[in-house]
């Protein structure tokens, strides 16, 4: 069973675009932090805060430090452009809800973490298509090769202990010593 399990649970969903939409990317992306190609500043702040709840920062780095938002912006501008409608609709709906519930707040990113989590649990139920797209994009941005704009300085790989040396000799782990 040499299977490509990656679509388990993802197959057939719009989020697949994040995993199958790459044909326009042939060169490395080097967008600087803080400038975006598709997202507005406020959208970027919301996306970054959402991603930071999917892979949070604690005593170790998370999606924020890996610059997942840069990966997502790059993707929406090029290799995952097909996800733009899902993102635009999903983000607009989410920001409206945040504004209705917290009219005095300057956006989702400024809310308390517990409040953000509660809003995201609601988002996951209300708009699973956008949520899954966001989730897959965050994971891809965390762990794809840094040339795609995320996984900044291999933050994601270091977090999980993946070493991109691609050549090893036994022992490989603690049990085969």
């Amino acid at each position, binding site marked *: 069973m040499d*299977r*490509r399990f*990656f679509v388990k649970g993802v197959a057939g969903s719009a989020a*697949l675009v994040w995993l199958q939409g790459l044909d326009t990317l042939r060169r490395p992306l080097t967008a600087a932090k803080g400038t975006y190609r598709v997202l507005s500043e406020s959208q970027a702040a919301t996306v970054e805060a959402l991603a930071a709840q*999917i892979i*949070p920062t604690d005593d170790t780095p*998370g999606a924020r430090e890996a610059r997942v938002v840069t990966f997502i912006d790059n993707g929406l501008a090029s290799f995952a452009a097909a996800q733009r409608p899902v993102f635009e609709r999903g983000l607009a709906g989410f920001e409206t809800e945040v504004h209705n519930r917290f009219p005095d707040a300057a956006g989702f990113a400024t809310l308390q973490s517990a409040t953000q989590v509660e809003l995201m649990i609601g988002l996951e139920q209300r708009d699973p298509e956008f949520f899954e797209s966001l989730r897959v994009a965050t994971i891809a941005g965390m762990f794809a090769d840094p040339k795609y704009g995320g996984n900044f300085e291999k933050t994601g790989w270091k977090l999980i202990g993946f070493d991109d040396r691609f050549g090893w000799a036994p*022992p*490989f782990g603690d049990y*085969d010593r």
Partner: protein
Amino acid sequence: MTAKPARFRPSDEVDFLIVGAGAAGGVMARELSKAGFRVLVLEQGPRLGTPDFQHDEYAVSYLAALTNNPRQQPSTLRRTEGEKARIYPAVSYGRCVGGGTVHFTGNYWRFHEIDFVERSRKGAIGGTGLDDWPITYADLEPYYTRVEWEIGVSGAAGTNPFDPPRSKPYPLPPLPIKSTGVLAERAAKQLGWTAFPAPMAILSQPYRGRPGCIQCGWCETFGCEVNAKSSTLVTMIPEAEETGRCEVRPNSYVRKIETNAQGRVTGVKYFDGNRREVFQRARAVVVSANGAETPRLLFMSRSNRFPDGLANSSGMLGRNLMFNGGSFAAGVFEGEINGYKGVVDSRVIQDIYELDPALGIAGGGGFDFRFDATPIAYGVWGMGERGPHWGAEFKRRLRQYNHVAYVLGHSTSLPVATNTISLDPDVKDAWGLPAIRVTFEEHPNDHRLSEYLTAKSMELLDAAGALEKWSFLPGTPAWPQVHLLGTCRMGNDPQTSVVNRFHQAHDVPNLYIVDGSNFVTSGRGQPTMTIQALAFRAAEHIAEQAKTSG
């Protein structure tokens, strides 16, 4: 002396035209050209080489650099014949010279004797077309041995108590054991079972001019950057070209096999890389396009004389589609496993190859311990459908990356006539050809088998000392399916099979079908070894027949 690869013109009538340069097509090309015939291989995909084989998970796994791209070649899926199929990535296959052998994991299990005679030994099963093969393990054994020695397979004979008889040991010693393999041994011992060195189509040492494996660890879904993986791209295909009688023509997408008034094949029509249609003449055609593309091409080759598709007087074309069932469970261990380092599999367990009849579940299978989730894959699906998907708990599990071992079950999948490959009536690919339509509903036995294997996997994880564990939902595993079997069944009776025991179409004397589509039963996973053994056997017979008939 090495001759230059042949170059044929479309007007040249080649002796054999092979559709597909994969596991079977590569063997056919090598064997038929070495036997003295002029051979042309048409391959849909490009010809790639080591510079193209990068460790870029995002590009390779998800861009479909080595496989069919679902956006250019969509497939559709439905459960039963009454439904309308929807676009879905239902099948995945190697789409480059070398086919699936370029990106496969390299598990090279032989089938056992039971796989060929399960119907007569164990009895019929309601709702299935379970049948014996027209050949036995003994018929195929010499060709299994040839595969091992011709392409280079690493393993240790005599270590698997359930191994069927073999005429020769492996040509290469096994690859080094990994932590997953040690855990497999530990678990097997607890259950009174045996974990033996995995037979792998990856070189443990230099062999026939190719280097041994460097243990990069990225075999599954990736191409090998040092040619240690024994793909047909680096074994059979260059040897075929060295005869000076074989041309491999990439970017050549066959859309129709043409036949004449006598019902004989005359050649094929294909799209070249610029989507221009070319007619290539041939004295005989061998279709080795895989269990989905082969029946699709035969359906697309329908004509007035063959209105239901070429070689389909039996009505069996496209039927009995099988994928190999299985199960999937995961455990977290205290020590580092680092599954991403080194070849995917190092130990295999086959103690339940034939299940105890008292269980009332048909078939059987085997297990291996591995951790084959590349980083994105682990985050997207690796924690299972019921695992955490985001947040602090998700991050905790991400950080267990180097401590996780998976137990994979690999099993039979029963042939069911209503599980089929057919042409989608509406959806077309980027060339305007009808999309592959998959109709598939798991047989209830196979679901029970998957549940059983899942439970056994959890037992194995406990026995290995897992601190935490989880299982994936039992049942037909992930889409897209990659083991595409059964759709042009081999048999002695032209009423119930598509090809005879030597892979010749019952209906068309100069048409041969050699790939996973010929399987009568699914085996217990890992079909490529058997596909290639069948190809060596088929080529020997076809060459003899062609020489005697002139």
